[in-house]
């Protein structure tokens, strides 16, 4: 009985910590005398910008296993951000993130921002600040050639593998409903796991944003012509770091109007 009491006390402690964290007063949005937001000043003082990026998405953020170097369209964007904030594109610390870790890493302050094929949704906007989209992509389907599927229509009653950040799940579901076909979903933590499941026949199609799918295309697979439900990628920052959010958003829009963003998209063959 005594032990039960200790247990209950422990749980109460956890829950009070939790609520205490949830109701913290806003901070970081204030500005210091120089007119630079406090949260941006903190990054300047540190002298390095910490960005969460993908390392398993070719052309966006991909770590070359041979050289160990991370490169891609979103890495270039991160360099642009470092240049904007710190005046030097090399003052950059990249952290590998997945759909599962990018939120917690922002919350804990381990990264200042996520540039990680992060699709903007209304629900997610409640938790994080998102910049205006820097890239728009459509959801697509990767299937085995030998299956002979022509489009989503042929996938009636089939299993679709998606990643656990499932804006693609909702997109496929909506499109399937329009076409009057029924599909079921299997969710996996990473893209390579979905590819393994496609290869072994556990799923009949691998669905995610098309530009990501191209990284997994090989001799035995093909990408169906279907392209639906535009996915908008935004740069995510922590709520409360509103000065940083504004700076990031302004920078994205600057690059858009100057045409630099289009150049980068071309450079990586994403147009």
């Amino acid at each position, binding site marked *: 009985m005594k032990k039960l009491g200790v247990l209950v006390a422990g*749980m109460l402690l*956890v829950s009070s910590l*939790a*609520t205490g*964290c*949830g*109701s*913290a007063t*806003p*901070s*970081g949005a204030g500005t210091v005398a120089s007119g630079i937001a406090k949260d941006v000043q903190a990054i300047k003082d540190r002298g390095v910008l910490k960005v969460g990026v993908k390392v398993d998405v070719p052309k966006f953020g991909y770590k070359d296993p041979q050289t160990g170097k991370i490169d891609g369209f979103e890495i270039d964007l991160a360099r642009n951000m470092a240049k904007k904030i710190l005046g030097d594109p090399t003052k950059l610390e990249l952290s590998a993130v997945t*759909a*599962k870790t990018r*939120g*917690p890493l922002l*919350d804990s302050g381990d990264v200042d921002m996520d540039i990680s094929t992060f699709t903007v949704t209304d*629900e*997610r906007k*409640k*938790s*994080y600040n998102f910049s205006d989209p820097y890239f728009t992509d459509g959801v697509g389907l990767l299937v085995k050639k030998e299956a002979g599927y022509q489009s989503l229509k042929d996938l009636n009653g089939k299993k679709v*593998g998606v*990643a*656990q*950040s*499932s804006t693609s799940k909702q997109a496929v579901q909506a499109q399937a409903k329009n076409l009057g076909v029924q599909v079921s979903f*299997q*969710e*996996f*933590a990473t893209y390579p*796991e979905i590819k*393994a*499941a496609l*290869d*072994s*026949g*556990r799923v009949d199609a691998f669905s995610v944003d098309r530009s990501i799918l191209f990284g997994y295309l090989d001799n035995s697979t093909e990408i169906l012509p279907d392209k639906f439900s535009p996915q908008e990628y935004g740069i995510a920052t*922590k*709520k*409360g770091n509103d000065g940083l959010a504004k700076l990031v958003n302004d920078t994205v829009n600057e690059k858009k109007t100057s045409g630099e963003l289009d150049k980068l998209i071309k450079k990586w063959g994403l147009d």
Partner: protein
Amino acid sequence: MVGPFAWFKWQALFRDWRVFADGLGHTVLASILALALALALGILFGMMGTTHEKVFRVINRIYVEFIQNTPLVIQVFFLYNGLPHLGLMLPVLSVGVLGVGIYHGAYIAEVVRAGIESVHRGQMEAALSQGFAFRQAMRHIILPQAARVVLPPLTNQAVNLIKNTSVLAMIAGGDLMYHADSWSADNIYYGPAYVTVGLLYLALCFPLARLARYLERKMEVGA
């Protein structure tokens, strides 16, 4: 700022409670079936490990050493993605039950072997001299005595087994962990999701752990 445990995230969780209830059901089902398999394998292979037949003891060692010295994650990944390449496509629940059942069967085999060996060999000799066949002696004399010794560690194995069914999350198994991953990746409300799931696992495992303690104490008194 919005913390990971903001109230609206909890509200979303309560609204979607069915997702977690569904996961809990899967976890309980997989646990029960896997435990039944693990017990059957554990008792069979545990007894093999104590026989005088060398071939049985070798089989016991191969099974136990191979399973105990490779990660469960790899065993399950093989059952899920490897076997289909060999033409065998097991349903995902069977993969979980087989994977976790075989894995814990190896540990239970060791528990059972130790339990049987803890019964004085004189018991077996006496039984055999009284005209019992080996099998009868095992069933009526040795195993009932060993059972008292192995119950507490066996219950601990059951607790570990329940927790290990969370590997199903990796292969889209529809268990509690899978639904927590899936739900919280959608909306990034990971705070309430993982606290709730943690508490649900606690609710499943804690009574069993208590039972183990109780059995242990009862045995000490009896001895």
